[in-house]
């Protein structure tokens, strides 16, 4: 079984982002970039399925600027077999990414696409569901467990009330939640090996996809800051504050 995994290059989750003074976006110059954490989980799952003999090949795809090649090299070091960069400097919104991934899926014909549930920069939580819709495939979002059978996947999903299990016919799209697995670290020998793996570069034009953004960002601002609070000595003082100052209890 061939598995396709999408990986997005995002501002590292440890970085406290700053809004640009001119209100056009957030500062991304000289900021540490990493693979979207949910995509690390997606890739880890694919690698485990390969190690278990279920998957035969893992193809990783990233859409965006040239620097996404770094993210793809990391993915190859973690265990992907081949990489594809859909290279563009244009701003990519989830619908456009889903269309690019659809075009790639039609070329690669994977049985399963594993993606992150959410990119931690745009916090959209859309692309996987959109890809499934465009391909006419079923979807299982927010996965905390994936079991593959001959022609279907049985997926446990993290939902508002607890857990839900759905069975979806293959080919399908699955998006990952935090509890699916714990991603491994990249080792030096694997980083060396990854340099020899194939990395193909495509463009939206070559794939016949129009990526023109549908949303225009009018402005980006910092949210209102909370005013500094006070430290109180003990539980007794706290109860007094909550009852008499804040009046919340």
């Amino acid at each position, binding site marked *: 079984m061939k598995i396709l995994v999408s990986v997005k290059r995002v501002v590292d*989750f440890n970085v*406290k*982002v700053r*809004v640009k003074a001119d209100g056009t976006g*957030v500062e991304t110059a000289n900021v540490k970039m990493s693979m979207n954490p*949910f995509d690390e989980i997606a890739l880890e799952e694919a690698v485990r399925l390969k190690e278990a003999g279920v998957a035969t090949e893992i193809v990783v795809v990233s859409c965006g600027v040239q620097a996404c090649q770094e993210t793809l090299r990391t993915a190859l070091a973690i265990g992907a077999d081949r990489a594809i960069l859909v290279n563009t400097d244009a701003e990519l919104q*989830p*619908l456009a990414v*889903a269309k690019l991934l659809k075009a790639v899926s039609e070329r690669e014909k994977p049985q399963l696409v594993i993606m992150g*549930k*959410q990119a*931690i*920069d745009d*916090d959209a*939580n*859309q*692309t996987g*569901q*959109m890809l*499934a*819709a465009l391909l006419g495939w079923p*979807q299982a*979002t*927010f996965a905390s467990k994936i079991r593959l059978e001959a022609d279907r996947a*049985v997926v446990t999903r*993290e*939902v*508002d*009330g607890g*857990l839900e*299990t*759905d*069975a*979806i*016919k293959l080919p399908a799209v699955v998006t990952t*939640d*935090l509890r699916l697995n714990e991603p491994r670290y990249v080792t030096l020998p694997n980083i060396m090996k990854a340099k020899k793996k194939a990395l193909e570069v495509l463009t939206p034009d070559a794939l016949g996809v129009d990526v023109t953004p*549908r*949303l*225009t*960002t*009018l*402005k*980006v*601002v*910092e*949210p209102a800051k*909370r005013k*500094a*609070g006070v*430290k109180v000595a*003990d*539980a*007794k003082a*706290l*109860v007094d*504050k909550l009852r008499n100052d*804040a009046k*919340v*209890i």
Partner: protein
Amino acid sequence: MAVLVVAEHDSKSVRKATLNAVAAAQKLGSDIHVLIAGHEAGAAAKAAAQIAGVAKVLHADAPQLRDFLAENVAATVVSVAKNYSHLLAPSTSNGKNVMPRVAALLDVQQISDIVAVEGADSFVRPIYAGNALATVKSRDPLKVITVRTTAFDAVAAAGGDAAVEKLAAPADSGLSSFVGRELSKSERPELTAAKIIVSGGRGMASGENFTKVLEPLADRLGAAMGASRAAVDAGFVPNDWQVGQTGKIVAPDLYVAVGISGAIQHLAGMKDSRVIVAINKDEEAPIFQVADYGVVGDLFQIVPTLVEELKK
């Protein structure tokens, strides 16, 4: 043109998140219709008809809609989309699952998790774990939107008297099927609807301590219980307790964070609470930067004393 709100319901009643989504829809100034997609959910459709400000309820009843599978619900929404200028749903796990599928089928770029309506085509939404707020303008003729429920005060569940209209559901996609559900049982208020939340982090050290130390506090306050990712990952409590960027977004009147450091991803889910209390032994913990009241010290001493003080 009217706007459509895809309701979150449990067949018998309409969940509160729907009332927040209707509140967001009201800002658009058009007639509001509500869709109840389900099976044997007539009671929920009746409840939806009573929501203040709702002009019409569409009730799609079919066995294949019972478990709210994305493929079938999305097809149902798409079947009526041409009658509407906006399609909205609350940002619940169902809303997040279904609406992007709807958007893609309609060739629309969804606007996720809006916190304000600036006009018929402009909306404010948080990005980067809420560290920035973006105002975006959509060029799509139809807008597909999910609504951050904490940002809109719920409309009244009663007072309306809308007509309920039957809607034929498209056939089962045959692509997916429901296998089972393991819902966490609790007598407590639901996390996203609670007025008071008591949340525990890694500092709780075990699931047992959640029961022994934190529960009595939640009981005293009539609070819902939440947790940080670290506490969920460690298996102390179920996944649906997670508050944060990638968990639940909450904004109660009072949020008590116990043994939680206050990582950006956690703050993203609770920093709009009205009053925040932090109990942490590390006085440098970032949670104190957003807390209205902080107590520095060992939670295993402070929390039991707090419970005693509350009894007085």
